[in-house]
């Protein structure tokens, strides 16, 4: 059984433009390869029609939102992949180094864990007892005070655009 979904070009262009503006406003970058990125944006729109949400075009979605939460674009793995590889899994988003042509992107390994071990299967809770450590490190931007709980600080502060070196471990 197969299906055919056609997305009008103007719809692809409109989302491409909006995602680009949103990315730039929060310290991220879309892949500057226009043809590549356009193809991915089209894939996002196809998946939105299929599933009702923009699942990653380069991953096989289950079609049940709860199971696919971690791969709805931007996925839970984008930021660690940007740090380690310079691009997210599908390469819709790329790092500063890639934008400055200091690094080339490639097809990267899948970081998503197997079902049952995904972020939605084991939510990170705040500590409940005094003295208990948080489930994730908390990072603080020394420039603007922005706090975030994640394995590593973001490449660029989404609020004030300070680089990752300006973050300190807060908790």
């Amino acid at each position, binding site marked *: 059984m*197969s299906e055919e979904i056609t997305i009008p070009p103007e719809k692809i262009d409109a989302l491409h433009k909006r995602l680009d503006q949103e990315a730039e406003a929060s310290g991220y970058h879309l892949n500057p390869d226009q043809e590549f990125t356009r193809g991915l944006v089209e894939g996002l729109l196809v998946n939105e029609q299929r599933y009702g949400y923009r699942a990653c075009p*380069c991953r*096989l979605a289950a079609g049940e939102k709860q199971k696919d939460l971690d791969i709805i674009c931007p996925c839970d793995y984008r930021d660690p992949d940007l740090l380690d590889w310079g691009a997210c899994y*599908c390469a819709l988003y790329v790092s500063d180094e890639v934008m400055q042509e200091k690094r080339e992107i490639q*097809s990267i390994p899948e970081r998503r864990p197997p079902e049952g071990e995904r972020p939605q299967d084991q939510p990170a809770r705040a500590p409940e007892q005094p003295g208990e450590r948080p489930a994730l490190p908390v990072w603080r931007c020394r420039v603007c005070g922005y706090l975030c709980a994640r394995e590593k600080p973001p490449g660029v502060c989404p609020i004030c655009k300070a680089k990752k070196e300006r973050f300190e471990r807060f908790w």
Partner: protein
Amino acid sequence: MTESKGSIQGSKNEHRIMFYGLSTCIWCKRTRQFLENQGLSFDFVYVDLFHGQEREELVAEIRQWNPAISFPTIVVDNKQCVVGYKPDELKEALGL
């Protein structure tokens, strides 16, 4: 239009090549283009265009080679598998 599965007849038939991809994935598109540009014969299937039992069977096939079920997965001669857009690895696996 993306066909859900089929065969490409190229001039090179020395290997049996099975390409598992997603119709929305651009790395899959590049990989397929690479195989076509090399003039290789291969079978292809786009797993996202299948549902229910048919999809489960395809996923079970891929799992034997690539437990992460990631795409593209290319199986050569039912012996080895290359995951992702990896022209150099494919060349080596296919003796190109």
